[in-house]
């Protein structure tokens, strides 16, 4: 037993047990301090002062964003699965390099875009300039009717859709890895934090932190899509903005998609059409539920698919689910859940919002 008889005000304040009592954090059956106070009237004043001080000088919490934490944890788990480890040294450099790249990318592209199309025309009239092998020649044009796979000099893989064109920067791999895409392609990029990978399309720039993703940017389409399979991708408008801080930029994580609507000049974030399952659910193997609270079910979906689900926790606290949802796609799972709990869902700004009236 501590010698509380000899305690001064400061001693009480720093005592964890005393603090818990002062902050009413003890279980009600713990009456130690009440009793102690009654049996030590001479210490009464000190106790009251210490108590007030404990209350007044609590530390304010710093607000936390649970989806931010969720994403950060997922990013760590994803990297452990890949078995690649960039190391902080490179990581830090990459951050620096990346901010330079955004800045330079804009200027560079600004000056570059002047002669991009003319160059392409020149290439089109001169067939010898577009030999398609990986020996460093600048352009790939898939005129066949099937998807073509090829490997870039850094080992990254590209799946180029029919009737799509990929031009590779002459300086590819020197300080940055830049390609120019007209059409649709999927990329699987080798991680190299010192040399960011940038995909330029007519309207958008996609900057990659080592990852796989798909760009859909046919000139005749109304919208440009960038969707992410793994890793993290930054997308921004490619217009030469003299102030890069003003350019809109969105960061995509797996199962998210950026859509650029040409007519509105708007860049928005949504969820891909059929999200892939990224992780096993934490609490229930294979989404098998037996009268499981709906909050648990939603948490599993959020974790497994890397999406954010918003719902009224208070309203739906009585809702539970008994079902096995193993192999259905995410949106089918959601539809089944919503039917069970008399709710509906919608997609707003890349997030799932579930509306319901609660359960009896």
């Amino acid at each position, binding site marked *: 037993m501590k010698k509380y008889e000899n305690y001064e005000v400061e001693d009480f304040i720093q005592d964890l*047990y005393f603090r*818990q009592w002062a902050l009413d954090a003890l279980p009600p059956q*713990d009456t130690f301090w009440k009793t102690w106070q009654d049996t030590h009237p001479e210490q009464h004043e000190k106790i009251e002062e210490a108590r007030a001080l404990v209350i007044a000088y609590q530390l304010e919490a710093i607000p936390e964003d649970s989806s931010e934490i969720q994403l950060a944890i997922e990013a*760590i788990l994803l990297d452990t699965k890949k078995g690649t*480890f960039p190391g902080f040294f490179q990581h*830090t450099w990459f951050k620096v390099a990346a901010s330079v790249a955004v800045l330079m990318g804009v200027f560079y592209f600004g000056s570059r875009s002047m002669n991009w199309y003319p160059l392409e025309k020149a290439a089109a009239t001169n067939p010898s300039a577009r030999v398609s092998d990986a020996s460093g020649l600048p352009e790939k044009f898939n005129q066949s009717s099937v998807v073509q796979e090829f490997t870039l000099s850094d080992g990254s893989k590209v799946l180029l859709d029919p009737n799509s064109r990929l031009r590779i920067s002459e300086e590819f791999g020197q300080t940055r890895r830049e390609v120019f895409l007209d059409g649709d392609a999927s990329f699987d990029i080798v991680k190299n934090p010192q040399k960011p990978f940038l995909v330029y399309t007519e309207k958008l720039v996609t900057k990659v932190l080592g990852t796989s993703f798909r760009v859909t940017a046919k000139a005749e389409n109304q919208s440009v899509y960038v969707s992410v399979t793994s890793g993290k991708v930054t997308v921004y408008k490619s217009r030469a903005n003299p102030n890069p801080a003003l350019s809109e930029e969105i960061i995509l994580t797996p199962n998210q998609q950026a859509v650029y609507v040409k007519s509105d000049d708007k860049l928005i974030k949504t969820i891909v059409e059929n999200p892939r399952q990224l992780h096993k659910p934490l609490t229930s193997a294979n989404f098998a539920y037996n009268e499981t609270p709906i909050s648990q079910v939603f948490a599993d979906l959020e974790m497994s698919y890397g999406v954010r689900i918003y719902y009224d926790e208070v309203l739906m606290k009585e809702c539970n689910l008994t079902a096995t949802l193993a192999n259905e796609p995410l949106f089918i799972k959601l539809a089944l859940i919503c039917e069970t709990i008399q709710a509906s869902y919608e997609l707003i700004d890349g997030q799932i919002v579930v509306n319901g009236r609660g359960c009896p």
Partner: protein
Amino acid sequence: MPKSKSIVQSPVKTSAILQDAAGQTLWQSFRAGNSDAFAQLLHLYYPMLLNYGVRLSPDREFVKDCLHDLFLEFWNKKEKLSDIENLKSYLLLSFRRKLFRETRRLKWFREANEVTEDYTMEVQFTIESYLINNEVQHEYLKKLKLNLEKLSKRQREVIYLRFYQEMEYDEISAIMEINYHSVVNLIYEALKLLRKNWFLLLFLVSPYVLDFTTSFKQLF
């Protein structure tokens, strides 16, 4: 100075002990290569570490990068890690070291001539926010703020680890890599300062303060 310096585990730390016991088990199966255990460890400790980190550095993304790498390092050398007796302390210490190491490194890149162990410690007390939120414009509020700024970052860090993370003194001494007596001194100096300000506060703005303590108690 405290009359008693014996380290008695306070009886109320049971929830923390339970959490640590769960952490311990998870840590063991993570070392054996269980990735689910690793994921659960992250869920258990990431928020707590982020909370500490954003107080030590204002650059949230940098803090998250450090955490990211710290956990990847754990994962990549899991076979070499040993059993940890006090996981929470171990994580706080590893993270603190990591953060300072990377800060120095970053600093070195940016401004090669200035390499110091420079960090901040961001804490705000309930009473300050209360007075600010209630728009107490009293001259004394300024003085209170000024006085509280006199707390050194080390004092603030000790207070944070003791009050917020509820660490024992020997744990704090391990985390901050200073000796036990320095920890005790830091906290008692800090508490004296807080107490002195409390007295002034009582005399000068007693209506607010009384209101504060009563309204706070009514919350329960």
